């Protein structure tokens, strides 16, 4: 990782036929940063995340994630990152323990597996829930289980896609507490979200619209580029209005 950068994106482009979903964006994300990627639907947010996770090959440009190029070494990228989807990606008919063990094994954990599963249960405050069927957990518990599953293999970069959609405020607070702890211990966190109150929690953020980067920096810096907006919510609304 050069100069403490977890992610380096240069002129990244992805076309789907005639549609330019991502049209030349450049930014970087520092190690241990909590970085937000914001934008309305169709802004290229999902396409960008999918390229950074090694799922989509860029049409042109480069992206280096956790030290590996997503175009040339997508498999290395996949092993180095964690990903928690909006849908949580849990098996509702498996127990908490079985979900953890499955994802751990898929990431190649073997001798370490027991220790890591125990770590995840403790860290995610799932304590005695091991034998419970995942489908019967509360929204907050499922969210923390999903987070635990994505952290078993000690990823250095963690992607959270709309992580707190449909989770109650208390569980949301607990979740952010865990996330800040992880960042403090050295994990880089990349979050996409629609919740503007959460945008204030980011160290830095990038606004995407129509495949372009329209604003980029710390919340304060971003606010400064939009002088007539009092908070990030206003900026978000302004950007969306400009698009339509």
């Amino acid at each position, binding site marked *: 990782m050069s100069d403490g950068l977890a992610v380096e994106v240069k002129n990244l482009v992805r076309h789907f036929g005639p549609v330019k979903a991502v049209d030349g964006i450049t930014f970087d994300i520092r190690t241990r940063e909590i970085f937000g990627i914001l934008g309305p639907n169709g802004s290229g947010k999902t396409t960008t995340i*999918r390229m950074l*996770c090694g799922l989509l090959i860029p049409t042109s440009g480069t992206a280096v994630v956790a030290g590996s190029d997503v175009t040339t070494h997508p498999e290395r990228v*996949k092993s180095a*990152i964690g990903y928690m989807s909006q*849908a949580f*990606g849990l*098996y509702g008919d498996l127990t908490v323990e079985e979900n953890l063990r499955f994802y751990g*094994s*898929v990431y190649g954990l073997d001798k370490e597996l027991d220790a890591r599963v125990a770590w995840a249960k403790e860290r995610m405050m799932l304590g005695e829930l091991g034998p419970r069927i995942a489908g019967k957990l509360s929204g907050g518990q499922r969210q923390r289980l999903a987070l635990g599953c994505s952290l078993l293999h000690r990823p250095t970069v963690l992607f959270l896609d709309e992580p707190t959609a449909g989770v109650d405020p208390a569980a949301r607070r607990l979740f952010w507490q865990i996330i800040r702890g992880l960042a403090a211990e050295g994990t880089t966190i990349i979050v996409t979200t629609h919740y503007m109150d959460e945008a204030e929690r980011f160290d830095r953020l990038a606004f995407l619209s129509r495949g372009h980067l329209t604003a980029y920096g710390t919340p304060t810096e971003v606010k400064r580029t939009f002088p007539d907006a009092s908070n990030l919510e206003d900026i978000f609304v302004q950007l969306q209005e400009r698009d339509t």
Partner: protein
Amino acid sequence: MSLHRLWAMLLKEFIQMRRDRGTLGILLVVPIMQLTIFGYAIRQDVRNLPTVVYDASRTQESRALVQRFDATGNFRIRGEVSSYAEALRRVDDGRARAAIVIDADYARRIKRGRPAEVQVLVDATDPSASQSAIGAAQLVGQTSNVRILAQQTGAKLGEGRMPLDVRVRPLYNPALKSVLFIVPGIIGMILSNILVIITAMAVVRERETGTLEQLIVTPLTRTEIMLGKIGPYVLVGLVQMTTVLIVGHFLFHVPIRGSVLLIYLMALLFIVANLGLGLFISTLVTRQAQAIQLAFLFMLPNVLLSGFMFPREAMPKAAAAFGMLLPLTHFLQVMRGIVLKGVGLEALWPQCLALVGFSVLFITFSTLRFHKELG
């Protein structure tokens, strides 16, 4: 390809399968149920047609003729009626399926060497059920004619010594029992219908719950995901086939004349072809309900055109040609060949080749589509 990851995937599938008791039960019970239903209920060889007799002649000759009808086994004489109208009424209201009507001057005419008339009324609403009765009636007529002619000309003909003696020897299934024909077919039908649906559903379910998206961000390769998904169902398919073979053998006395090893090898090929098809269906749809509908669309021609129930020889050319595109068509010939005829690869290699082709085609096709769709 990592065995460690593949094993994790297989283990997960087995746990899920074990936990879904309902589906597992259906998978194991349905083959036995279908076998029992088809084995006992479906009889294409219709025998013992309830028959009434209106014998206006009431002579030794006419009684002998009725006896010859009875002896065919196709007609079960249920009693006599006293008029032609009564005979017709019995067939009308369904108390009889056939009626034999003999004129009053039957014996007199025969003695004088003049043509006598016998009518056989057969309820032909179900063509296939009436077919064998009609055939039997005509046969009774022909043999009786020869006998009568011989008496008239004084030719010396002992029983069974006709001038031309055509002997038909039914091979492989000498008793012409439908169940022998049906059981090997059921194996193929169950395997294809159930496995296509179940694999299509299994993959679509992962997509619906969002776990498929999660799987592809892990180091799991697409091949590992696909193999992990179909592996457990290959096993289920083999268990189902074994059940049907055992029950068929001991309950319905289906002989297994050929190599059991060859049966399993060919079944494995067939199972892979069907799982490939199921996976392919899963790549075409986004919801489980759609997967079921598409699978049903496949099941109908599978049952009708494969030769499972209806002889392919009787089909219009286009339908028969379409049937060749179904793996089941080829597998049925393989199963009937091995189980009933006891033949081996030397006779079955074209079908074997077709099954290999289907497997390769479906798996390649669905893997390609799977790749494309997941980006």
